[in-house]
């Protein structure tokens, strides 16, 4: 049977913090299995991870994305042409 490692052992091998290993697992970058509620990593998966590891390019990161060249609103905006253009017949709040 293949050798299984726990999070601490995997962290020791990769020389990172155990939380980093957990993060990699949550992000799906490192495959792991659960045995009796505990996380175990197959040795072969860890070796594959070492081989194939590449950082996520910044374009794929989700959080705190910035829109490039955000447009600035000014008084010449065509939206002002719509100001008061219509009147609804229902009483709106």
């Amino acid at each position, binding site marked *: 049977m293949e050798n299984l490692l726990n999070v601490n052992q995997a962290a020791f091998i990769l020389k990172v913090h155990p939380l980093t290993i957990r993060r990699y697992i949550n992000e799906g970058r490192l495959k792991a299995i659960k045995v009796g509620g505990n996380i175990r990593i197959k040795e072969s998966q860890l070796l594959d991870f070492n081989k194939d590891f590449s950082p996520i390019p910044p374009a794929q990161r989700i959080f*705190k994305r*910035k829109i490039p060249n955000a*447009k600035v*609103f*000014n008084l010449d905006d065509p939206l002002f042409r*719509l100001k008061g*253009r*219509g009147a*609804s017949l229902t009483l*709106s709040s």
Partner: protein
Amino acid sequence: MTLQSKKVYIASSGFYALVDRAHQKYEHAAAFFRYFGIENYTLYTDILTINNTYNRIYQEISPSLAKDFLRTIFLGNINIIYPEEGDFKAALKTLVNYQSTELTFGQSLMAVLANRRGISQIFTFDYLHQLFGQTTFYLPI
């Protein structure tokens, strides 16, 4: 005096109040947009908000004005955010976990999109749910 960010997220009620001169908040909305223009704010909105506004104008005012609204929005200087799958999932999670049943999916999505882009002020005339520390934008008078 605290320095306020010049990024504001516009909700559907803000757009609608500007277009509808019979709206209670029409004058307010006009003043807000004038202020944004003078102070060169960066305004954001999302495609769902635009769709909601379009539908409301279509139903309550006129289809031709609704079309004009769309044309104007896409020509103008308001930054339109297009949500991705992750944004929808986060909005659903927020909606499910929030205690109040009055939070709608649209509001939840707006809060998520604003939060992910570091926008803390929302311009709306509706009730704003306290999500991610966001606040309603008020004119600094």
